[in-house]
């Protein structure tokens, strides 16, 4: 029989995590349990889904902090997520269907860090930081550094993802989200994009553009961001930025889509984001 540990407090969870680095961390199970009967049981499991200290949304002047074990359904019901981070809210609304939203968590999306994880481009566009804790240490890592490759992260064997911190968007910031899949619910994305643009006196003073499903991991398009910064939004600018995306992004063919379709969609998503500013 495999061991199943259900810590009641975060301190207890971190102690168990350091004592059992070979155990699987389980949250909502919507990634880990897929086709579970085709695999052996893990040696042991540490269940963090119900940990109160890792749940909920906390708003401060500077940031919004989201507990890693907060299910999507709770985030969808949160007014502050909707008003402060409408692009993240929109992304979550399109994840799975109600059954997945009741169980799936943002910590699990980050833990898996699949190129098609839908919250991840938003986290990049929002300059989010992942909070990682071990028994004796707490650190914060920008999501852009946390994900290091195809479903690879820098999570330590004694660490848990405990929260995600998102700086409050500055005044004049416009946030965007767009997902293209085969249907609206329950479809894995072919391409998705998120963006954050701050406009000051008609000029873009801060730009973040992130795409999912176009590389081995969610990525920003820095060259496009730099092109926009300091500019006044215009149709011409949108066209130029789209051209940068076309030369900078190198998607792949797979069962869900082709490279050339993905590239066209990515280019169009970013062009439309910029056109929305005009």
């Amino acid at each position: 029989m495999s061991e199943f540990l259900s810590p009641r407090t975060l301190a207890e969870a971190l102690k168990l995590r350091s004592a059992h680095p070979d155990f699987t961390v389980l949250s909502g199970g919507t990634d880990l349990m897929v086709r579970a009967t085709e695999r052996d049981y893990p040696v042991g499991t540490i269940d963090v889904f119900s940990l109160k200290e890792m749940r909920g949304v906390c708003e401060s002047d500077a940031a919004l902090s989201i507990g890693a074990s907060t299910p999507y359904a709770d985030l969808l019901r949160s007014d502050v997520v909707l008003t402060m981070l409408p692009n993240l809210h929109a992304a979550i609304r399109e994840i799975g269907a109600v059954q997945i939203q009741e169980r799936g968590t943002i910590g699990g999306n980050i833990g898996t860090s699949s190129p098609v994880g839908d919250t991840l481009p938003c986290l990049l566009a929002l300059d989010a930081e992942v909070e990682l804790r071990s028994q004796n240490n707490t650190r914060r890592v920008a999501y852009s550094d946390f994900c290091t490759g195809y479903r690879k992260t820098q999570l330590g064997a004694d660490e848990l993802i405990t929260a995600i911190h998102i700086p409050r968007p500055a005044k004049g910031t416009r946030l965007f989200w767009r997902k293209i899949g085969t249907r609206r619910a329950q479809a894995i994305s072919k391409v998705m994009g998120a963006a954050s643009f701050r406009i000051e006196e008609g000029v873009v003073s801060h730009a973040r553009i992130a795409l999912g499903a176009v590389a081995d991991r969610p990525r920003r398009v820095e060259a496009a961001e730099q092109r926009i910064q300091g500019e006044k939004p215009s149709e011409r600018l949108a066209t130029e930025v789209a051209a940068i995306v076309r030369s900078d992004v190198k998607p792949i063919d797979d069962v869900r889509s082709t490279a050339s379709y993905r590239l066209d969609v990515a280019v169009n998503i970013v062009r439309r984001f910029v056109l929305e500013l005009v």
Partner: protein
Amino acid sequence: MKIRMQVNGAARELETEPMRRLLDVLREDCGLTGTKEGCGEGECGACTVLIDGKPVNSCLVPVGQVHEAELLTVEGLSDGELLTDVQRALVEHGGAQCGICTPGIAVTAESLIRREKNLDHARIRELLAGNLCRCTGYQRVVEAVAEAAAKRGGAGDE
């Protein structure tokens, strides 16, 4: 691992491998075969049960996670032969044909009606998107759920 849970209002206690799927424990250990397996990957919703009132895919939940939880399966909806309004509407509208998706739809729809008022067709379609059906084409399911929701007069629990 020893698991204690409430299933359809009755206390159950069993000793089992904690990583077994709740779906299998319900069907094999509890004899509650109303909950169906369609896909085993969270896509089809045939295995939907309520955990503490929330609709979830029981194929994705290891039984270790429902220790001390309250579960409702399709067997817990009706009162013996007396069907719920949602179940009756599904029958009357032809919202159940081969029936494999029906337990999951009945359970999901029950939770939606309890939790949300003013369910229109578009919202019902959105909320039932995780319950696949190969027979009905959904229209009759949506009509049935809308009728049951309207009859309860939007008297949601929340």
